[in-house]
């Protein structure tokens, strides 16, 4: 069974549909990029996948070991966080909160998970540093480590490279690729960066009022919508 299945889902605000007839499924180890113009309902879709928003119709099912709250989420950064006094360790550990019930403090297990994920993302040496003093790329790694604390299976990323410099962007993509290939973590990424999407993704979902395309990257490149979107955005295939 797939990890995530959307069946004829309709999403919208206050009774007005933004996206309709959404049908797709995500299997373990997939790397799905969601592309589309601004206002096409990408962030609404993210909220629905995280179960923060009920679809107006249709259903979103999860399976294959993926619990409802088992998605690790990397949100876009908010202004509040830019000057928040918090150490890297505090932030990464807070990713474990979702699954430890009513206990007030972290146990050995949670601390170990946090440690392991900081190691994985190469930020162990930053553990005691203040979040707001880090570079943009480092901050994203911290938030990614936190997301990994919340999941073993699936990462959902909302514009993960927005506002990063080119070097940090490349590092971020390499990191995601490694997690996807070595740890078999499923990745769903909303992105404006169509070129990167075509380089790294295994599947593409192109949404608008109606979903315009869902399928593998190869098919997307052959499809009419794929080619016209690429010519508009000036994207070139790198892979």
């Amino acid at each position: 069974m797939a990890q995530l299945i959307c069946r004829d889902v309709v999403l919208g605000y206050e009774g007005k549909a933004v996206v309709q007839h959404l049908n797709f499924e995500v299997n373990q180890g997939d790397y799905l990029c969601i592309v589309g113009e601004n206002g096409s309902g990408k962030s609404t879709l993210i909220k629905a996948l995280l179960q923060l928003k009920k679809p107006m119709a249709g259903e979103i099912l999860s399976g294959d070991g993926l619990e409802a709250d088992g998605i690790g989420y990397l949100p876009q950064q908010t202004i509040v966080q830019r000057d928040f006094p918090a150490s890297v360790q505090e932030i990464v550990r807070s990713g474990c909160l979702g699954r430890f019930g009513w206990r007030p403090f972290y146990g050995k297990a949670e601390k170990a998970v946090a440690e392991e994920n900081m190691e994985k993302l190469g930020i162990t040496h930053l553990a005691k540093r203040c979040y707001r003093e880090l570079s943009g790329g480092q901050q994203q790694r911290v938030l990614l480590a936190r997301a990994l604390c919340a999941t073993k299976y699936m990462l959902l990323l909302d514009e993960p490279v927005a506002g990063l410099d080119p070097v940090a962007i490349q590092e971020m993509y390499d990191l995601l690729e490694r997690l996807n290939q070595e740890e078999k973590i499923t990745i769903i990424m909303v992105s404006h960066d169509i070129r990167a999407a075509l380089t790294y993704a295994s599947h593409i979902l192109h949404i608008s009022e109606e979903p315009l395309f869902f399928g593998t990257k190869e098919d997307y490149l052959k499809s009419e919508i794929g080619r016209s979107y690429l010519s508009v955005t000036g994207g070139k295939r790198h892979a």
Partner: protein
Amino acid sequence: MLEMLMMYFQYPFVRYAMLVGVLIALSSSLLGVSLVLKRFSFIGDGLSHVAFGAMAIATVLDVASDTMVVLPITILSAILLLHTGQNAKLKGDAVIAMISVGALALGYLFLNLFSKSANLTGDVCSTLFGSTAILTLSLLDVWLCVVMSILVLLIFTFFYHRIFAVTFDETFAKATGMKVNRYNLLIAIVTASVIVLAMKLVGSLLISALIIFPALSSMRLFKSFYGVILSSAVCSVFCAFFGILLSILASTPVGATIVCMNILVFALCSLLGACLKRG
């Protein structure tokens, strides 16, 4: 000077004032960090005005314990304010401004129309600035304050990590399955309670200072959430303790003296923070 203090501390009401002052300072500083970081400082301010209005009603009704009237009204407003804050149609800050000014006006009007007190201006002044209220605490008030402070401390310790998560990143907390709205509600209710208690100490106009200053001072110096929380508690207790001592010695108004101590500490922390950054 020491003798003079000893003499004052023989009176139970002075000891009560000290105890209550320190406890209130402690609870408000803990909350303050979260409120400031969530950009909710204004809610504290708005609620304090609501508390003034409620206090006026309590005075007019002539009930045995003001707190029993003021507390529920303020908590209710806190819940309402929090909900409007999330509602995109009504702008949160405008609503807060509306409610707080409205409550202030209504309260003053009620007092003028119905109060039997001979010294109306004095009453209003002490509710707004807390000048003598703290020295007239009943034993019931003292116990209420002790119990509430312990409750705030317990809640804060128990939910510490969750409060951190909700403050730092609501969306992420929601996505991992935390009931974020419940924690926001909890924070609002506790804030309302602390404000009602603090009204006795510094008066309703100066409460925001107790909530905001220790957090802001600590944020100049410390870089982890834990550090900021601890330092803010220490700062606040320090200011309250010496503020009260000073006000006894110099016979200045208690609330204003404590707030001035806080301003002083803030200035020192800013200076120190700037030096550390450069050095």
